[in-house]
């Protein structure tokens, strides 16, 4: 009752029971003893006492704290006798005052897991040298209480280092060892070193007291090294400079190779810099480029007959087909299987195409030969031939159906090239275009075709392209020449199929009918008449033209009709002159008689002579034989 009155009185005065204390932590420094600290609650204004009670794991008996003072205030110290390892302690703190008591929350403690050792002791830091370079050696001792010797506690250590002026520590884990070396020191720096430890399963201890150490200056050693390095590098630099200077030129060529300048013969850079284009281009004009002398023309003259082989005849026919598109001759050569390559519309093309009529002539010749042998349609064929030749009189390229033995000068000068007949047309076209387009092409004055067509049409384009262009044409030219030769004679040459490539046939020749053998073959013999050898500019052909077949009489004699020619008379040739027509009728027996009636004119050696020879065609194939004529 008294108690209650006292308590009530105390309560009335404003006092209250103590607040609830709390156990803050329990720690064991060496796993042999431990201490618990608590935080008291409000005391309620009255003197409050605290008591700590604990209970061990396996028993219900409650013990009170044996020592409240050793560890300080609000603590309970458990000595060795009271401490059991691997035993759970249930600890409770009770605060009591006159009004009441308050129990704290129980805390389970196992001493093994609350070990926090003391910091390491006897820490020493010394400076030692390793081949002239200093380093710090830190050594310490485990805390005194911790029994590491018997193995009861196993500790691991950690230390930290920093320079005095820095803020961040450099941590080093030392493991179980009690010494540690620190390298890479700054010369003349002041270092701070601290160490701490931790058991296998526990908490880190506090950091030990700081040790100060000052590193001596060893900069002079570094300085000497730097000096040596500088001298060495300077020496190397001097050597490199000297080497560079000695090899400056070759190095310069290696690194910056000289830019090759343009090297054009006759091209003067100074002229170009001066900016006068006229002079530049005039400088490009080489004296012998392109050939303008007439000697070239002479070279272009074809002076012999070319014989072709039948295979090539077909090819040539194809080529001629390409060229003649619109030529009458093209139309006539129905045997050609080609489908009208090219067109004969343009004047410029006309000459070339008509120049290709030789092929057709060849074709017709074959037909003619067939006619000869068969003696069936020969008349018609011959008439055709004569027509052709008659039309050949026309120098103008407008002759669409004339067998113009015109050959572009482009193709003539290089007869030695073996041409590919298939390329004829393309090359012809190219040549023509080349001739037409290139401004630098020179015109051949002797080219009658040019006179007829205009200088632009038959420009003789010399140059690098020329050989190529001429190349395929020469053979054609040769072949066509042979063609025309045969046409002239109206007789298939006996050696026609054989001696096509014979160089002796390069120049057009006129043959005369020698005889007709038993096999109904007309034998020809070359006739070298004085009226034919004309070189240089075209001249009117002399001699008679017996290229036209007038007919075959009853005696199976070929009646040749001589073309109308001026001053054409071939000495030594018998001929029948009919009136003013100048037609020379010669008859040649197909069978046996040898009648040198055929007046065959020698080929005009004039290259590019568009003027109709007596035979009625213009022999331009002679141009193909430039070098060998």
């Amino acid at each position, binding site marked *: 009752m008294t108690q209650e009155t006292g308590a009530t009185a105390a309560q009335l005065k404003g006092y209250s029971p103590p607040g609830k204390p709390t156990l803050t932590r329990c720690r064991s420094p060496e*796993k*042999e003893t431990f201490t618990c600290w608590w935080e008291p609650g409000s005391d309620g204004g009255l003197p409050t006492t605290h008591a700590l009670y604990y*209970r061990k*794991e*396996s028993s219900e008996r409650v013990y009170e704290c044996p020592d409240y003072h050793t560890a300080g205030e609000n603590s309970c110290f458990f000595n*060795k006798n009271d*401490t*059991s*390892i*691997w*035993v*759970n302690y*249930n600890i409770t703190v009770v605060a009591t005052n006159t009004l009441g008591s308050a129990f704290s929350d129980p805390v*389970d403690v*196992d001493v*093994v897991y609350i070990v926090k050792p003391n910091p390491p002791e006897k820490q020493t830091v010394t400076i030692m040298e390793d081949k002239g370079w200093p380093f710090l050696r830190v050594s310490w001792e*485990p805390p005194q209480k911790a*029994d*590491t*010797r*018997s*193995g*009861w506690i*196993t*500790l691991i250590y950690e230390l930290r280092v920093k320079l005095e002026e820095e803020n961040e520590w450099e941590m080093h884990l030392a493991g*179980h060892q*009690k010494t540690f070396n620190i390298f890479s020191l700054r010369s003349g720096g002041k270092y701070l070193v601290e160490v701490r430890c931790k058991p*296998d*399963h526990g908490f880190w201890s506090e950091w030990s007291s700081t040790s100060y150490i000052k590193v001596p200056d060893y900069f002079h050693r570094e300085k000497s090294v730097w000096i040596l390095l500088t001298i060495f590098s300077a020496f190397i630099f001097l050597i490199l400079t000297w080497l560079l200077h000695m090899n400056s030129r070759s190095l310069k060529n290696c690194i910056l190779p000289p830019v090759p300048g343009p090297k054009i013969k006759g091209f003067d850079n100074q002229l170009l810099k001066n900016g006068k284009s006229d002079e530049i281009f005039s400088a490009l004009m080489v004296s012998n480029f392109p050939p303008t002398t007439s000697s070239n023309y002479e070279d272009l003259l074809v002076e012999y007959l070319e014989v072709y082989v039948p295979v090539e005849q077909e090819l040539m026919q194809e080529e001629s087909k390409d060229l003649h598109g619109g030529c009458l001759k093209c139309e006539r050569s129905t045997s050609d299987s080609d489908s009208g390559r090219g067109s004969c519309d343009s004047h410029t093309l006309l000459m070339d195409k008509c120049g290709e009529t030789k092929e057709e002539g060849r074709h017709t010749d074959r037909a003619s030969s067939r006619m000869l042998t068969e003696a069936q349609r020969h008349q018609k064929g011959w008439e055709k031939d004569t027509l052709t030749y008659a039309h050949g009189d026309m120098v103008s390229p407008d002759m669409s159906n004339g067998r113009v033995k015109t050959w572009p000068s482009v193709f003539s000068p290089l007869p030695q090239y073996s041409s590919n007949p298939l390329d004829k047309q393309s090359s012809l076209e190219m040549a023509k275009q080349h001739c037409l387009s290139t401004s630098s092409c020179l015109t051949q004055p002797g080219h009658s075709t040019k006179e007829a067509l205009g200088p632009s049409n038959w420009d003789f384009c010399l140059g690098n392209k020329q050989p190529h262009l001429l190349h395929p044409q020469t053979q054609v030219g040769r072949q066509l020449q042979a063609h025309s030769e045969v046409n002239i004679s109206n007789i298939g040459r006996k050696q026609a199929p054989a001696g096509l490539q014979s160089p002796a046939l390069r120049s057009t020749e006129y043959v005369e009918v020698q005889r007709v053998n038993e096999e109904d073959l007309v034998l020809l013999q070359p006739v070298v008449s004085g009226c034919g050898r004309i070189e240089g500019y075209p001249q009117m052909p002399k001699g008679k033209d017996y290229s036209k077949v007038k007919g075959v009489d009853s005696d199976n004699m070929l009646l040749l009709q001589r073309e109308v020619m001026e001053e054409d008379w071939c000495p030594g040739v018998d001929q029948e002159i009919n009136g003013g027509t100048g037609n020379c009728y010669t008859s040649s027996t197909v069978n046996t008689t040898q009648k040198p009636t055929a007046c065959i004119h020698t080929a005009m050696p004039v290259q590019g002579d568009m003027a109709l020879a007596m035979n009625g065609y213009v022999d331009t194939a002679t141009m193909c034989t430039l070098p060998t004529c």
Partner: protein
Amino acid sequence: MERAVLLLSLLSLGVSSQPITDGQRLFSIAVSRVQHLHLLAQRLFSDFESSLQTEEQRQLNKIFLQDFCNSDYIISPIDKHETQRSSVLKLLSISYRLVESWEFPSRSLSGGSAPRNQISPKLSELKTGILLLIKASEDGAELFPDSSALQLPPYGNYYQSLSADESLRRTYELLACFKKDMHKVETYLTVAKCRLSPEANCTL
């Protein structure tokens, strides 16, 4: 196995020049193994504890105090004084018994994860190592003339007889007891090793 072979070879040779060194090596191996086991047990327990609610944790703590580990019947030194008073052989034998007591129940330690599956075989190996150490000691031959004396009552039933609803509590107890026992063995073996080592500074 390597330890067995090595130790047997040493025994066959009779007294070797450095028996202590070999013994130390064996001790080092045993200590390292038990340390690893202890770490495993700690991790298991902490993982389990973290997965619990606060309320459950409080209840478990209370419950844990009421029950006790199965190995409590094995009398072992519980402080340093007692431990240092015990002979090496006694320490080894106690360690052996502790490890053996967990050999079977460790399989039920909520196996599934890799670490937990390794516990039982590791315990077996550790047991073998401790046995080797016991036999290598001078008094070992006398202590275990009959291994049958060490046959303890089956304790597997102790943990398996519980009902399902107490599984959570049982797991908690299992893990806590396991952790404690491993620490015991680690301590005993470390002390025994350091006692046998000639150098006074036994910190390895």
